[in-house]
C-alpha cells in the first residue's frame, strides 16, 4: 500500500496569493494512498526540506509529492532531500502549481481546484514510480571545445592543465577570435594581443590539446561521457606538416586585393594568407574563391616558390572522428553588419564604421599601424561621433536586449582616439551608461572628465554626407531636447552584438536550445548558468549572450570545474529518466529498424506508428516504463464531477514535451501571463513519445479538447522526435475525421521555451474553440456502453 507524502508550498505568497493552499493540503490528505499532507511557507528552505525528511522517516513514506514550483526549478533540491532521508530520489515528484497554476490564473476556486488536480495527478504518478538507480556511463576523458576565441582558449587550457585531453575546433584559419582583433582592452587599456597571444601559443604547444583550426563540427552523436564527434577539417591547400610558415607564398601571391576579414574589411590580404602575423597555427590557407589558380586554372606561383613543396591544390576536406566525454561550446558572437542602419549610412559611407573596424584602426597591427585615419581618404578625423546602442535596446530593430559591452568599448574608443589625436573632438551619443563592473564606472568617468569626450544623451536620427563631411543629426535630451547637428569626419557605430550566423545550425547539431535571438540557452539562468539542457554540453563566452573578456574567462574556468567533476570519475552517473517503455526495447532501437528476420520482434508494428526512438538521443537512458502512461487512468475521475457543473467549462488536456513547451509554459508563469485554468498539463520527454492512443484515453477520461505541443522543427532535443510525431499527427487527424471525430478538438502546436506568450494564447484560443464546440459527450458516453 502506497504511503505518499504531499508537501504544499506557499512560495511566500507566490502560490498562496491565488491558491488556497490550506484547502489543497486538506483535500490532498483524502486522496487514496496519501499518508501525510502539509503546507509550509517556503518548502525549499532548510526547515522546509527538513519537514520532508522528517515525514519520510516518521511516516514511513513510500513516495513524495512536492507541490511547488516547476520541476525545472527545484526537482533536484527535493530529490536530494529525499535521498538524504533514505527515500529513493526518483520516488519524489514535483507538482508544478506555481508556473502552471498560481502565476497564470486568477485567484479563485477554479485555480485552487486546478492545483488540487495537479497534485492528484502527481500522486497517481508517484504511486506508479519505481525506485531507480542512476545509470553508470563510462566516460571518455576528453573534452571537445568548439571555438578558439578567448573563451574557448581559456576552457581548453584549464581542462588540459587539469590533465585531461582536449580537442579544440576553430572554424577560422587561426585561433584568437575577436579578442585578437582588439587594440587595447578596457578598463586597463592593456594590449589585447599581448595578453592573448601567449595563451594562443600555449594552446598550440600543450601536449593535452589537439588543435583543429580551419575546421568545423560536422555532427555530434551520443550522450554525456560518450559523444562521438565528426570534425570537418577544411582543405587548407597545403601540407601542414611540411609548411614552415615562412610566408614566401604570401609575399609572392599575385592576388593581393582581398578585403581582410581580420582587419574587418579595412585592410587587404593575398589569396594565400594567414589572418594575422601572430596566427596560431602559423600556416596559411588558400582562399579558393579568390585564388587565381582556382578561378582560371593558371598561376600556381605559391607552389613554385614554396621551399618545402607544401602546397597541395588538390587537397580535399578531411573528416576526423573523435570520442569525447563533454563538449564546451564557445563559438562566440558577431556584431550586426550590413544595411541594418540605412539611416546612419552604414555600408554606404566608407567613413561610417563599426566598433570592430575602429579596433583595427586603433590597433598597432592594423591597416593604419595604429594611427586613426578614416577609410575614405586616409585623413586624420578632426571630429569623431560614436553612436552607442546602434541596434541594441531597439525593439523596432528587433533587438530588445542590451549588448552589454558597447558602453565600455565606446568609452575606450573615444579615449584611444583622444590619446592618438590630441586636438580631435570625440562625441558619444548614448541612451544610458551601463558601466557595472570593477573599475568600469571610473573608466567612463575618466573618458568624460580627463579625456574630454563629449557625451550627449540622445539618439541619432540620421547620418548623411554633405560636402565631404558626415552630418550627424541627433538630439540632446539633457539640454532642453534640442535637435543637434554635428559635422563629423568619422562615425563609429557600436552595433549590436548578435549570435553568429551559424548559431542555429550548430545548436541543432548539438541539440541544445537557444533563445529568440539564437543565443544558446543555459539549463537554468541562475543556478546552472554554464550548462545546457543537454547533459555534457556546456556553454562558454558570448555564444550565450554578449559578454566581455573577464566574464568569458571566468565562465570558461567555471566550466572546467563542471567538466572535471564527471571526468575525474571512471563513470558518470546519469539520471535514469524514463524515455521509452521497456518493451519497445530491442536491437531495432539502435538502427531505427526492427530486428531481422525471425522470430518476429515484439510489437514491431507499434513502433511503425510510434517509430523507433531516435538513436542519437543524447539523454537516452535505459528503459523504464513510461510514467505518464501509467498515471493516466487515476487522473480522470475527479474531472467528471467538475464536468457536471452547470456552466460548461471545457476540460482540456495538454500533452507537452519537456524541453520546449513545458519550459515555454513555465515562462508564461514566470512572465505572469494569464490563461484559462481548464487546461491540465502532462509532461512528456518528447512529442515523439506521445502515443495517439493517449489522446483517445484523454477523451474517454472526460477531456473535451486536447493540446499537443512540442519543439519547433529542428529544435527537438532528440533531433527528430517532433518530425516523427508530425507525420503521425497527419495520419491520426485523417483517421479521426474519417471516424467522425471533430479534428478541431485536438490542437497541435509548436511552442518553444521562449514562447511564453504563445502558450497563453494557444491555451486561450483552444479553450474558446472547445467551448464553442461544447462537451464531447458523444465520446464520453462510450465509456461503459456495451456491457451486459
Amino acid at each position: 500500500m502506497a504511503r505518499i507524502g504531499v508537501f504544499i508550498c506557499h512560495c511566500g505568497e507566490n502560490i498562496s496569493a491565488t491558491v488556497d493552499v490550506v484547502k489543497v493540503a486538506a483535500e490532498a490528505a483524502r486522496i487514496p494512498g496519501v499518508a501525510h499532507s502539509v503546507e509550509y511557507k517556503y518548502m525549499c528552505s532548510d526547515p522546509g526540506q527538513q519537514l520532508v525528511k522528517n515525514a519520510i522517516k516518521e511516516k514511513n513514506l513510500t513516495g513524495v509529492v512536492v507541490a511547488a514550483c516547476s520541476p525545472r526549478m527545484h526537482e533536484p533540491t527535493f530529490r536530494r532531500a529525499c535521498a538524504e532521508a533514505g527515500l529513493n530520489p526518483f520516488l519524489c515528484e514535483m507538482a508544478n502549481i506555481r508556473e502552471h497554476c498560481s502565476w497564470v490564473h486568477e485567484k479563485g476556486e477554479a485555480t485552487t481546484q486546478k492545483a488540487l488536480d495537479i497534485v492528484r495527478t502527481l500522486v497517481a504518478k508517484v504511486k506508479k514510480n519505481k525506485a531507480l538507480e542512476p545509470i553508470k556511463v563510462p566516460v571518455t576523458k576528453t573534452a571537445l571545445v568548439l571555438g578558439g576565441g578567448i573563451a574557448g582558449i581559456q576552457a581548453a587550457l584549464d581542462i588540459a592543465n587539469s590533465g585531461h585531453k582536449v580537442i579544440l575546433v576553430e572554424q577560422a584559419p587561426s585561433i584568437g577570435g575577436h579578442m585578437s582583433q582588439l587594440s587595447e582592452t578596457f578598463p586597463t587599456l592593456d594590449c589585447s594581443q599581448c595578453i592573448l597571444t601567449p595563451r594562443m601559443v600555449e594552446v598550440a604547444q600543450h601536449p593535452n590539446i589537439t588543435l583543429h583550426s580551419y575546421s568545423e563540427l560536422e555532427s555530434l552523436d551520443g550522450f554525456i561521457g560518450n559523444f562521438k564527434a565528426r570534425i570537418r577539417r577544411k582543405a587548407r591547400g597545403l601540407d601542414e606538416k611540411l609548411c614552415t610558415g615562412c610566408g614566401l607564398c604570401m609575399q609572392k601571391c599575385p592576388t593581393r586585393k582581398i578585403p581582410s576579414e581580420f582587419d574587418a574589411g579595412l585592410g587587404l590580404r593575398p589569396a594565400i594568407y594567414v589572418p594575422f602575423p601572430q596566427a596560431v597555427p602559423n600556416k596559411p590557407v588558400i582562399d579558393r574563391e579568390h585564388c587565381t589558380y582556382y578561378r582560371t586554372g593558371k598561376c600556381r606561383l605559391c607552389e613554385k616558390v614554396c621551399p618545402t613543396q607544401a602546397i597541395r591544390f588538390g587537397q580535399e576536406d578531411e573528416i576526423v572522428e573523435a570520442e569525447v566525454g563533454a563538449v564546451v561550446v564557445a563559438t562566440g558572437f558577431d556584431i550586426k553588419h550590413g544595411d541594418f542602419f540605412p539611416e546612419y549610412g552604414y555600408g554606404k559611407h566608407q567613413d561610417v564604421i563599426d566598433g570592430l573596424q575602429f579596433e583595427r584602426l586603433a590597433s598597432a597591427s592594423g591597416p593604419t599601424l595604429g594611427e586613426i585615419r578614416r577609410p575614405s581618404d586616409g585623413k586624420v578625423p578632426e571630429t569623431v561621433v560614436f553612436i552607442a546602442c546602434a541596434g541594441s535596446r531597439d525593439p523596432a530593430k528587433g533587438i530588445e536586449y542590451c549588448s552589454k559591452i558597447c558602453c565600455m568599448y565606446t568609452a575606450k574608443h573615444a579615449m584611444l582616439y583622444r590619446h592618438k589625436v590630441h586636438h580631435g573632438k570625440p562625441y558619444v551619443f548614448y541612451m544610458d551608461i551601463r558601466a557595472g563592473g570593477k573599475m568600469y564606472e571610473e573608466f567612463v568617468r575618466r573618458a568624460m572628465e580627463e579625456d574630454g569626450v563629449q557625451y550627449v544623451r540622445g539618439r541619432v536620427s540620421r547620418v548623411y554626407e554633405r560636402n565631404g563631411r558626415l552630418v550627424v543629426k541627433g538630439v540632446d535630451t539633457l539640454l532642453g531636447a534640442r535637435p543637434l547637428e554635428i559635422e563629423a569626419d568619422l562615425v563609429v557605430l557600436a552595433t549590436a552584438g548578435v549570435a553568429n550566423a551559424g548559431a542555429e545550425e550548430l545548436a541543432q547539431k548539438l541539440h541544445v536550445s537557444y533563445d529568440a535571438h539564437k543565443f544558446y540557452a543555459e539549463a537554468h539562468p541562475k543556478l546552472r548558468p554554464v550548462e545546457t539542457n543537454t547533459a555534457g554540453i556546456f556553454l562558454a563566452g558570448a555564444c550565450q549572450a554578449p559578454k566581455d573578456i573577464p566574464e568569458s574567462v571566468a565562465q570558461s574556468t567555471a566550466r572546467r570545474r563542471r567538466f572535471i567533476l564527471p571526468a575525474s570519475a571512471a563513470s558518470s552517473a546519469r539520471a535514469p529518466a524514463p524515455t521509452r517503455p521497456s518493451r519497445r526495447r530491442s536491437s531495432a532501437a539502435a538502427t531505427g529498424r526492427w530486428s531481422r528476420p525471425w522470430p518476429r520482434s515484439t510489437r514491431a508494428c507499434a513502433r511503425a506508428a510510434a517509430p523507433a526512438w531516435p538513436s542519437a538521443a543524447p539523454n537516452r537512458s535505459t528503459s523504464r516504463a513510461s510514467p505518464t502512461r501509467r498515471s493516466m487512468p487515476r487522473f480522470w475521475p475527479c474531472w467528471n464531477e467538475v464536468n457536471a457543473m452547470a456552466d460548461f467549462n471545457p476540460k482540456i488536456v495538454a500533452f507537452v514535451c519537456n524541453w520546449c513547451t513545458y519550459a515555454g509554459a513555465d515562462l508564461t508563469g514566470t512572465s505572469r501571463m494569464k490563461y484559462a485554468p481548464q487546461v491540465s498539463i502532462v509532461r512528456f520527454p518528447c512529442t515523439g513519445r506521445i502515443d495517439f492512443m493517449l489522446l483517445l484515453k484523454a477523451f474517454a477520461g472526460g477531456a473535451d479538447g486536447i493540446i499537443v505541443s512540442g519543439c519547433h522543427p529542428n529544435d527537438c532535443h532528440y533531433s527528430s522526435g517532433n518530425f516523427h510525431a508530425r507525420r503521425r499527427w497527419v495520419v491520426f487527424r485523417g483517421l479521426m475525421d474519417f471516424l467522425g471525430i471533430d479534428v478541431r478538438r485536438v490542437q497541435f502546436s509548436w511552442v518553444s521555451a521562449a514562447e511564453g506568450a504563445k502558450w497563453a494564447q494557444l491555451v486561450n484560443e483552444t479553450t474558446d474553440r472547445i467551448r464553442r464546440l461544447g462537451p464531447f459527450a458523444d465520446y464520453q458516453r462510450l465509456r461503459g456502453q456495451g456491457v451486459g
Partner: protein
Amino acid sequence: MNSMEKDTRLIGREALAKLFAQWLGEGRRILAPKQSNDKVDFAEVETPGEVSLDPVQTGQSPKGALFPRVEELFSFPSRDGRVELRERDLAALKPTVVFGLRPCDAAALAALAAIFNWDSADALFSARLAALTTVGVACNRCDEYCFCTSLGGGPGATTGSDILLTDMGGGEYLAEVISEKGRQAIQGAGTLFQPALGKDKESRLARVEKAFDLDKVKPALEALFDDEAFWVEQSLRCLGCGACAYVCPTCACFDIQDENGRRLRCWDSCGFGLFTLHTSGHNPRPLQSQRWRQRLMHKFSYMPERQSVLGCVGCGRCSRACPVDMNILEHLRAVAEAKP
C-alpha cells in the same frame, strides 16, 4: 417430463404477433434473429415481422443472452480511499424470451450450463438462465456445414427448447410445448392456439445426413493426442483468430478484467496464443496446432468425460465464420478415419 402428455398445437402468424405483445406486456424482452445490414443476428424485437428466419443459421449464436460478450460481475467503487463492494442485482435481470433459435442452439444451452455450473453454480449465469425462455424453430433447410445429426441432435430435436415451433407452411406453425417454462410463457394465451389435429412436423424437417461415427471420435482423439504431425497438418491454414470460438454456441472460455471499479467477465478463446501464457513466460501451448487440438479435445473428449455432455452441437457456425475455411466437419471426419 415423462408424466406430461405431449402438448402440440397450431399457431398462426397473427396469433404469434399477439403472443409477442403478451410477452412484452409481461415485461419480457424478446431476442430473435433480425436482419441488420448484411447479417442476421439475435437482437431485440417487438413483432414477428422483424424476425428473419430465412438463413439456415444466424451469424452469431444466442449464447450472449446467458453469457454476454462483456458482463459486469460486481463493482467496487471507491471514494476517499474507501472501497465499497456492490453485488450485481440479480433480481433486476429482465426476463427474456429467445425466439427462433434452432434446435442445435437450444441443445447448446445444456453444454453452457454444464460448464458454468460444473463444480459450483455461477450465480449470474444461473439467474440469467432462470429468467430465460426458449422458443425454438425447427430447421426446414440445412447447408453443407450442418452436422447436428452426427452428434445426436436433429433438425426437429426438442432438447433445450421450452417451446419448439415448426413452420408448416401457409403461415402456420406447429407448436410443441415442452417444458413448464414453455407452458408459463403461453399462459392465458390459450385462445391464440388451435389444435394440432395430428399434424406431423417430420415432413417439414431438413435432411441432415450423418457424416461420421461419433463413437469413434473420442477414442481416436485420445490416440492421436501425441501425433504432432497430424495436428500440424490439420491446422496448417488456421491463423489463430477467435472467430470460431466467438460464434460458437457452447464455447465458454472467459477472461476477467477490472475496469474503472467494475469486475468484468468477457469472452476469450483457447485459440489465442496468450490464452495459456503463464506469468513465468512459459506457454504450454505455444503453437497453433496445439491450440487447434485443444479445441477438438475439449469439445469431444474432455467435456464428455467431465461434464457428460458434448461441447459441440453441429451448428456449423465456426466453419461458416472461419476466414480461412477451416471446416470442423472435415476435421472430425479425418479424426474418425485416422489410423494413428
